[in-house]
C-alpha cells in the first residue's frame, strides 16, 4: 500500500502561495509605519510596492498631472494607493 503515500503529502508541501490581503501605510520618507499584511508576506516586497506607489504620486506631480489615488489591476490582485500628505496608504486585495 506504499503508493498511498503519494497522496499524503504534509501541509507545508501542498501550501500554495496565497496572494496578500491587507493594508499598510508608508510615510513620505518611504518608511512603513503600520501594516495589517500577514507576517508571512515578504517585507521587501511590501517595501517595493510602497516605493512604486510613492514614486507614482511624486512623478505624476513632476509632469503636472498630480494624482490622489491609483488603482493597479493585476489578473489576481488589486492594489489601491491613496495619497496621504506625501506618504500613502496602500491596500492589497486578491481578486475574487
Amino acid at each position, binding site marked *: 500500500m506504499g503508493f498511498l503515500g503519494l497522496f499524503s503529502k504534509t501541509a507545508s508541501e501542498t501550501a500554495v502561495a496565497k496572494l496578500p490581503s491587507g493594508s499598510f501605510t508608508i510615510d513620505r520618507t518611504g518608511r512603513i509605519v503600520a501594516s495589517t499584511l500577514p507576517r508571512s508576506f515578504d517585507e521587501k516586497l511590501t517595501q*517595493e510596492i510602497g516605493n512604486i506607489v510613492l514614486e507614482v504620486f511624486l512623478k*505624476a506631480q513632476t*509632469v503636472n*498631472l498630480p494624482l490622489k489615488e491609483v488603482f493597479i*489591476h*493585476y*489578473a*489576481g490582485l488589486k492594489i489601491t494607493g491613496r495619497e496621504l500628505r506625501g506618504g500613502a496608504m496602500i491596500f492589497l486585495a486578491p481578486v475574487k
Partner: protein
Amino acid sequence: MRLPFVAQKNLDSKKFTAKEIMAERHKVLILDDEQDLLDLYRDLLSKLPSQPEVFTANSGARALALLNAEKFSLLLTDLNMPGMDGFQVLTIVRRRFPALRTVVMTSMVDEQIRARAYAMGIDLYLEKPNEKTDVQLFVDCIESLLEREEAGGFRGVQSKSLVDLIQLECLSQSSSVLKITNKSVEARIWIQDGDVIDAQVGELSGEAAFKSIMSWKTGNFEMLAADPSHPRTIVGSYQGLLLDTAQAIDESQATEVSAKGELSVAEGGTASPLGAVSRCHGVEFAISVDVNDKSKVDAWGIENPAAMAAWVHSFMHQLHVVGEKLKAGQLMKVEGMGVQSNLGFLSRPDKELCVGLRRNFTQSDMAAALNEVGTKWVS
C-alpha cells in the same frame, strides 16, 4: 450675386455616414487655468446645436500641443494665466495657425487690453459670463462663429466668398490687383476693366493659378492698385472662368468627402498612430512608448512627451517586475484619479500606453473609457 455651386447641392443631398459626420464636427479648444471653468465651458459648448467636439487645456503649452495634434475650428482663451499668458499663446497661434478663429474670454474689463487683443487678429473679445443672459449670449456668439466657419468666407468681408469678390470687381468694370493670402501662400489676381486677365500662385500662372486660388475656402485679401502694364494670359470671359472653376471645385470636394470617409475608417480621422485612441470618449491626451526602447514614442496632445514617456516606461516596468514577484498574474490596467486629469495605463507586449481622461470621470466611467481605449489600441 452668387454663382450656382453644383458642389454645394451635391453635398447637401448626400447622405453622410456616422463616421463622416464625426469627421465633419467642429473642434473647439478652450484654454483656461481654472479647471472648474473649463468643465463649465465644456458643458455649455457641448450642448450647442452644432455639437462641436470640445477639448480643454489648462496651460498654454498644453493648448499648443493639442493645436499641433489636431485641426481645430476655434480657440477660446483666457488672458490672465500663470506661465504663458493668453497674449503669448495668441502670438504663437497667429504665426503657426493663421486660419484658426480665436476668441478671448476674460474677466479683465480694460479697453486697452481689448484693443490689443483685437490688434492681434482675434475674432471676438468676450467678458466671462456672470449672469444667465451673459451665458446665453456667450453660447450664441460661439455658435455663430462656428456657423461662419462652416460657411467659409474671407476675413475682412463677412460671408463673402472669393467668387463674390471677383464678381463684384468685374461687374463694376474695375481695374485692380487682388492680393490673397492663405496661411503662408500668397496669390494675385489681375483684373483689368472688369475682366480677369491673369493670376499667379506659386509657380502656377494664368487659368491654372486662378482655379487653384478659387479652391481656397478662407484667407485674407487686399486690393492693390491696378497694373495696366501687366500682360494678359487669360483671354476668356470671367463668367466662363468662374463656371469652370465652380465645376472643378465641385469635383474636388466630392473626392475630398469620399477620401475623408476612407481615412476615418483606417485611422480614426487623424494621421497620428494614436488617432483612433484620441477619438475615444473623454480622452484628453495619449502617449505610447516602446517597451524595449523608451525613445520610440507616439504622442497626441502632450506638451512634454519625452519626460512623460520616461515616466510611463519606468512605472510600467516596475509594475511588471513586482507583478512577477507577487505572482499576481498579468498587469491588466492602472487607473489614476487626478486633480487635473485622470490617467489610464494599459500594457501590450510591445508597448505601454498612458491616456489622460476627464477629471470628472468616476471610476466606472474610467473603466468604460479604458475598455474602449484598449479595444481601439489593440486593434
